[in-house]
């Protein structure tokens, strides 16, 4: 078996507030795999996802991403972050920059790309997410769905090896969820390695290679979508799925 691009083993995290978010979570993700993490709120799924971008650091455990050991003391997160794209629930577009500048900012500053080259890249990506006509628009003039698609294009501009999605559709009006999921499906079809925390079971069922169920800071069950939904092994997962239906 080839080495996984994400290897997390026995990760623990306790916040200053005292919340014990992760209690020995372990997860491996292979190159090109689409993994969906589901679970009740407070189960630690967002915390685990944020570890993969070093927005959170583990208290203990092993975390190796793209052959970089993140638990090495004084590990510089910037190298990792330029290889791992992140999409947030609240989009977090830069409100003082227009669509074009949102997408080009990081490739110009971090990848040191020229203005022209960066703008060409941005145009292609924004075209791909269906926003080729919104280059000059500021975030406040875009709908939630449009903002999230810009955020995806912004992350993709860095040509990341892994894309992380933290509940990308939870802050959207129902009629806008589809347009964002479409972009994500296309990305999955292109072979992008993706880890997605979501409540969209439809997306999980059709786009995921594997679904992971988390509860109380650990991974309880993981399986291919069909098995996962049809034959849940744990009582906790059965309850969770029943509540959804």
């Amino acid at each position, binding site marked *: 078996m080839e080495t996984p691009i994400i290897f997390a083993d026995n990760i623990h995290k306790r916040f200053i507030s005292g919340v014990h978010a992760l209690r020995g979570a372990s997860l491996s993700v292979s190159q090109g795999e689409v993994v969906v993490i589901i679970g009740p709120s407070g189960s630690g799924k967002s915390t685990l996802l944020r570890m993969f*971008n070093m*927005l959170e650091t583990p208290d203990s455990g092993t975390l190796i991403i793209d052959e970089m050991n993140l638990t090495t003391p004084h590990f510089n*997160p*910037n*190298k990792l*972050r*330029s290889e*791992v*794209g*992140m999409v*947030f629930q*609240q989009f*977090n*577009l*830069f*409100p*003082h920059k227009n669509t074009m500048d949102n997408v080009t*900012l*990081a490739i110009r*500053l*971090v990848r040191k790309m020229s203005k022209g080259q960066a703008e060409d890249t941005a145009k292609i990506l924004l075209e791909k997410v269906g926003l080729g006509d919104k280059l000059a628009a*500021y975030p*406040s003039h875009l709908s939630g769905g449009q903002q999230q698609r810009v*955020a995806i294009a*912004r*992350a993709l501009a*860095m040509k990341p090896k892994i894309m992380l999605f933290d509940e990308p559709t939870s802050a959207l009006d129902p009629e806008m969820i589809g347009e964002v999921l479409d972009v994500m499906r296309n990305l999955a079809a292109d072979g992008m390695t993706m880890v997605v925390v979501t409540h969209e079971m439809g997306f999980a069922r059709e786009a995921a290679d594997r679904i992971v169920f988390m509860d109380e800071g650990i991974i309880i069950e993981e399986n291919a979508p069909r098995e996962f939904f049809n034959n849940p092994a744990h009582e906790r997962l059965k309850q969770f799925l029943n509540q959804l239906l």
Partner: protein
Amino acid sequence: METGGKIRTAMQGSLSSRLLGNILFALVIIGVGTLIFASSRRIEYVWRWERVPDYIISSVRENFNARANGILISDGDAVYIIKSDGKKELVSEKAKLLMSEGSQVLVGDLVAVNKSLRLGPLTKGLLITLEISFFSIIIAVFIGIITGLMRISPVYVFRKLALTYVEIVRGTPLLVQIFILYFFFGKIFNMGQFASGVAALAIFTGAYIAEIVRAGIQSVHKGQTEAARSLGLNYIQTMQHIILPQALRRTLPPMAGQFISLIKDSSLVSVIAITDLTKAGREVISATFSTFEVWFTVAAMYLILTSSMSYLISRFELHMAKAD
């Protein structure tokens, strides 16, 4: 009950009217003014407002008398006398003839005058105040941003240093700080009055701006930092391109208040013998005894500076708002 309600709405309606409001406003101002005027009559003060303009801007009249007998001619702005031996004698490089050209003049005759405008002491003081405020504001903003960043730095010693500075400066009177800066640090580092004054005002205002900057940065949503960092931007890039532009825009209104305070507080530097607007006012008073007129004039001149500052900032805010 119902009539009561009706009356109340009618009252509210008329009270919210602009025209009526302006009339009432004028009445109150006139009333207060009359009261003050009437009271001032009782103290038998002789108002000499006519003297004041000279201390703002004065026209100086320079007289030129003939220093030789001859014929008066002018060449452009210059005035000459052609003596009997045909030699030209310069009267003035720049003056206006009082007699017609070609007149015969004798030594001692008043032949030309030059009127020029000269800045009065109050205007000179105003310029000094403007200069001090300008340099102090620039340095204070610089100190404020650095200290504001230090206040929320992950490095403990930076936080501690910044907090100590802010606490000391905010906890002691500006007047005392000016004395310490001038008489102690001024001596040690060989700083003049002007440098000491600017330094004192900048250090004082910098502490307040630091708190404004800190609050501004903390008001920017945490997600902005996370988004920037997740794209691989380092701390400095994140601050420079993402956080500070958003934070500083939000801090403009309180910042404007701070700048206005600084302009007013600059009057305190007059205690270390800087001839700013306040000291110029005191000097004019000691020469004229027109105490009331001069202080009112000085107040009006400060008001011009501060309201110009408010206007500039509000224009700048509008300009920034348009970028959205």
